């Protein structure tokens, strides 16, 4: 054979859902302090939505399976009755996906800021 090509097909990069984007952005903002309760609070505070914490867990679980975030269990903490936290941080695939989502969003929104604000 003179020419041989091998493909390495990774997990298909699917576009992120809206809530997935919100969760990923919260993870980025919270950095080392990103865990279930803080992520929920951050999204609630900024979007004004009421959230079920289990919905956040489900989404984080899915993002982890897609390779967008990784998690680890932290040290025991006094303020939580000695209970440990599960921390999350962005992985490269998650960063790529978030960047793609953000650029798609900004490209689509470019030049529309005024009109979008004017929408009721």
């Amino acid at each position, binding site marked *: 054979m003179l020419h041989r090509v091998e493909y390495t097909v990774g997990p298909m990069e699917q576009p992120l859902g809206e809530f997935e984007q919100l969760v990923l952005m919260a993870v980025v903002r919270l950095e080392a302090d990103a865990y*279930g309760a803080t992520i929920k609070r951050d999204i609630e505070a900024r979007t004004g939505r009421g959230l079920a*914490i*289990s919905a956040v*867990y*489900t989404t984080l679980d899915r993002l982890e399976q897609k390779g967008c975030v990784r998690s680890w269990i932290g040290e025991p903490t006094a303020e939580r009755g000695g209970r440990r936290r599960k921390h999350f941080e962005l992985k490269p695939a998650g960063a790529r996906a978030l960047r793609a989502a953000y650029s798609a969003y900004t490209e689509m929104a470019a030049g529309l800021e005024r009109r979008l604000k004017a929408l009721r």
Partner: protein
Amino acid sequence: MTSRLERALIRAAQAALPRGDREWMAGDLEEEIVRTRETRGRAAAIGWLIAETLRNLLHRAARAMPRPDVRGWVPALVQDFRYAARLLRRTPGFTVTIVVTLALGIGANAIVFSVVNGLLLRPLPVDRPDRLVFLQGSGTPAQSYPNYVDLRDRTTVFDGLLASRIAPMSVHSAGSGVAPVRRWGYLATGNYFDVLGVRPAAGRFFTAAEDGVPGAAPFAVIAYDEWVGRYGRDPGAIGSTIRINTFPFTIIGVAPPGFFGTERFYRPAIWVPLSMQPQIEIGNPWLQRRETSNLWLVGRLKPAVTQAQAQASVNAIAEQLAREYPGPNRGMSVMLTEPGLLGSVLGAPVRAFTLGVQSLAALVLLAACVNLASLLAARGADRRREMAIRASIGAGRARLMRQLLTESLLLALAGGAAGGALAWAASRALSAWRAPLDLPIQFDVHADPRVLAFACLVSAAAAILFGLAPAARTSGADPNAALKGLSERAGRGRWSMREALVAVQMVLCVVLVSACLLSIRGLQRAATMPLGFEPHGVTMGAFDLGLAGYSRARGEVFQHDVADAVRQLPGVDAVAYSNSVPLSLDQSHNTVYPEGAVSADRRMPARSAVVYQVSPGFFATIGTRLSKGRDFDWHDAAGSPHVAIVNETLARILGTPDAIGRRFRFGAAGTPTEVIGVVEDAKYQTLTEAPTPAVFVPIRQRYSGTTVLSVRSRERIDAAAIRQAIAERDASLPVYDARPMTEMLGLALFPSRAAAVALGAFGVLALSLAITGVFGLVSYAVARREREIGIRMAIGAGAPAVLRLILGRTALLMLAGATIGAIGSRLLAKLLSSIVYTASPDDPLVLAGVAGVMMAVGILSCWAPAVRAIRISPTAALKAE
């Protein structure tokens, strides 16, 4: 900080969290509940925690669900069914073959099951039938009335013990202007309806208190069908007076619809208290006789009593009774059996027979399923490319299996529906059928939900049986090899299971087809066989003077008058009467002791003979040839020396050179009777019987009130004319069996007809089995060896060589099967000839028929695949590479 209540709630909520994640999730919950309390208050915080716990549970449940949810699954199934239907429509021959085979197989099973259901499984139409037992005597199923009374009074294990007996009655609705009719009913003890626990549809039932003094309870309960049919559901029928055997009875009630008592085969029209026995069976009062076992006993077990306890108690009483009445009750025993078919008297043979037929039917279906499996496998081989393509574009094996199983399920559904319809129609016809008898024998075997469920179950089982293996094989094919056109290795050398099975099917087919042809030819011959009398041109009418209350003197005058009157009818050649005629259901026997013939051990050689009481002119009327001596005349009457005419078989036993003048007695102590004539032998009870001794005695000498009038006429006369002649003399006398004598022969021919129909049905089944079996085998061979055949043709093999390749083994199989089958059918013919009137297995028409059928099977089953093999184009077969 959290309060104690909050901590308790969090602990409870923890249970809803996944074990591995419990700690950090509970931590999050604690943080959140504190924050919620601080911002929105305590109550809101607790509400939030509870809601959050519920949501958590829901999320976990959703995650546990399989990924491809119902919304995707249903359309896929519909798609499968549509695809399967389209595919099956495209190959109508294949589809029809399978559906017909299945319909026959499933239909046969459902029909047999509906009989099993009707005769054995369906409960009796009474209250809690499982608590009823039949008290079966040894030898006869029945018990005598005194023994019944003793059993009833001494036992403590029954809530009630009833006794009943079937009896014909002459029923006349007073003032209705309608002639009396002959009806079969029950004589039943007063507690009969109580013990069975049925409620009247109208009026009331008679009671134990009323059934005491003989003759004091002239009450009748009529069957529901009788009430509808004869009284048009008239409530006024209750309380009206009817005459039974000329005695007035009052109709007091109507039995509920569908109620027929305790015996499944008998359809009574009327129930009368047992104390009325002397009025119902005139001239034969037996209620006080311990020797006369005429009653069927059914008991209802007390709630806490087991069948074993009851049997022990009944055994003890039977032993007592045997001790107390050593004469009539010697060796008395009572066995508790299931009611419905005279205990085990009919029950045991019916059970054995139906079980045998059901297993045969199951075997047939099993064989049919194996055939269908090989047909589907052949088709599967054709579809390997399709499956391979589907597999290589992403269909999983499970998906392919599902597609293939859907196809076989669709086929099974169609076959099951057709088979169910077949069974429904057949079981309705069977239920409506009534034996051509005066006795109302009927079997209710209509298809009920149980039969339907059975058919569905059988269809589903069939689908799995014939669908699974081919589906596994087809869907499991290696797509790579299939796409390249590599076929499976064609098996050579060893005989496969499938091939052996086809040979067995050939055997079955030959045996059943020849049995069917034998019995059909037998039927044909029976229609022309010498019976010893000539039924064509004879019309009959029967009446019972005993039931009508006639004395012997009045009866003899009446018989003579009626015969004279009928003789005056236009076209009548001869008239005679007798107590019975040959080949009717009513045959009496007696023991004949030749006089003077005492053997060395001082015992007289006695012979059992059929006995007829006949009028002068009887032989001329029914067409029996008198070979020696003279016929009776009117002087052979009471007071003159006893005379008899015997048939040739008995004449040979009585002595050579001829029997005229020989004497014999009926019973060791009977009156000496002299033989005055000899007539030709005839068939008396069945068409298949060997020559049987028969004695004819003058009815004027030995009177019988039961009268069968036989009328020979040049042109066919209407049975109604005979009825009319009798009615003119006594309008209240019920006439039965008024019909041409040939019609009565239907009864004698019935076993042969039933056998021909049943064997015909199984023959058709076996044929279709053999055809689909061979067809499947050959098709499969062709499909698997398509490439091989193509290559052979490309290098010069002609059509004959290809056919030899494909059909060689099959032809060998068929030949072997047919040979074994031919041997088997000769054995079966022997067995069959004792049951039905059959042709000889060497009958040329039978032999030719079987040979023709087998050739047809061969051609029909091999034609299509052979043609396909010859038409294989070498280029196309090789292009697949």
